[in-house]
């Protein structure tokens, strides 16, 4: 129920309230950013990219995007009716069907809930940002680099601004030879609000 409402909201905001740009401009820019990091962040001894450091840097960049993006998200969705965001399950639907829809024009599936309902997977059937990417054939990138790690940071940063501390990490990526591309999002805690939830 929350799912179809979120889907409708996502569609509407995407169609009527989102300025567009050619997807390829975004994907090429993202590619250039990650490839820059593989140049800059290298192990000085071996001159091999430090993929762990690149993951961290992408995550950090995404986090700071998330902190700012949430305002835009709330502004765009508020006029499309009240957000069905009363529990973590509804939050998951909002991230998948509204958040990713309006900011990336993709809709991941929400799957693989844990028993407690505190952790779910976002499964991406397609990921335009990595459409033309092949990781370096150095025997390490496919084991160590999460090309899309910026997006984990975005999810974390955005949820933090609405009082949710979450862990977000990729657990599989077709770029690594996996069969799926899945981000795992786990609720750590609700940040005790200084503001009551209904406060405008």
């Amino acid at each position: 129920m929350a799912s179809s409402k979120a889907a409708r909201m996502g569609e509407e905001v995407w169609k009527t309230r989102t300025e567009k740009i050619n997807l390829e401009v975004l994907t090429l820019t993202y590619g250039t950013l990650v490839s820059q990091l593989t140049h800059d962040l290298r192990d000085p001894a071996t001159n091999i990219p430090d993929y762990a450091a690149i993951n961290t840097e992408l995550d950090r960049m995404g986090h700071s995007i998330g902190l700012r993006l949430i305002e835009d998200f709330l502004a765009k969705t508020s006029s499309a009716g009240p957000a069905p965001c009363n529990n973590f399950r509804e939050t998951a639907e909002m991230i998948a069907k509204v958040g990713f829809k309006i900011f990336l024009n993709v809709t991941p599936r929400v799957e693989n809930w844990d028993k407690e309902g505190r952790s779910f997977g976002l499964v991406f059937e397609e990921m335009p940002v990595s459409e033309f990417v092949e990781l370096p054939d150095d025997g390490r990138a496919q084991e160590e680099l999460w090309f899309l790690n910026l997006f984990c940071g975005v999810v974390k940063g955005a949820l933090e601004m609405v009082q949710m501390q979450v862990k977000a990490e990729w657990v599989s990526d077709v770029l690594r030879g996996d069969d799926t591309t899945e981000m795992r999002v786990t609720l750590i805690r609700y940040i005790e609000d200084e503001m009551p939830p209904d406060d405008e």
Partner: protein
Amino acid sequence: MPSMVGPPPDVPPKEPPYTAILPAKPFHSRLHSPSSRKTIYDRNLNRTQTTPTSLPSFAYLFNTLITYHHSKSGSVSEIETRLNRAGYPIGIKLLDLLLYRQARAAVRPTRIIDLLQFVHTTLWRALFGRAADALEQGVSNKNEYMIFDNEPVVNTYLSVPKEMSQLNCAAFVAGILEGVCDAAGFGMEGVTAHWASASGGTGGAEGEGNKEEEMWPGKTIFLLRFGEVAMRREEAFKAGGG
């Protein structure tokens, strides 16, 4: 390869230092692909040609890129050079992607005018969904051409600190142009992005600002400076009546 005018010393070169490597035979790839066998070679190059995505998302990402290069730079000109270098490889890729998409109609731009047309129209449409606003030859220097964009989309949603108001982040687009032109074999002296108005992108033309400046505060001029080899080749063509 002609060098840019005074790039800061620690800015990466256009290409990594070249070392001739012959493919080791037999080369054993260590890459694995998913069981669906989807690799980049299975994708359709035309699929995402006109797919839209969110402009704000691009703006967030582009801001991130600028912040990153800002953090590594000591001056406005160094940020611009770094943004140019970030765009440069994109230009190299786009030249062939766009030619591929023209299929049988594709011809290589071999003359300066063909190349400028390609940039002004084909490249601009692919990136920004419209042609650039104008194309002019420089008055004082024969090797200079200017492409005008009244409202570069890369400067929308961009908040550049006041003290850096001269910074024009369209330097990134200038880098894309330089990549296209260099790849096509025109050995550029450089491609740079400049504000059309003295007040920069702030739109804060004081007092009697002229109409044009008010209407297009972000108007940007891309200055393309062709290298000597390309100029000599062009002269030879003209002399040969071609």
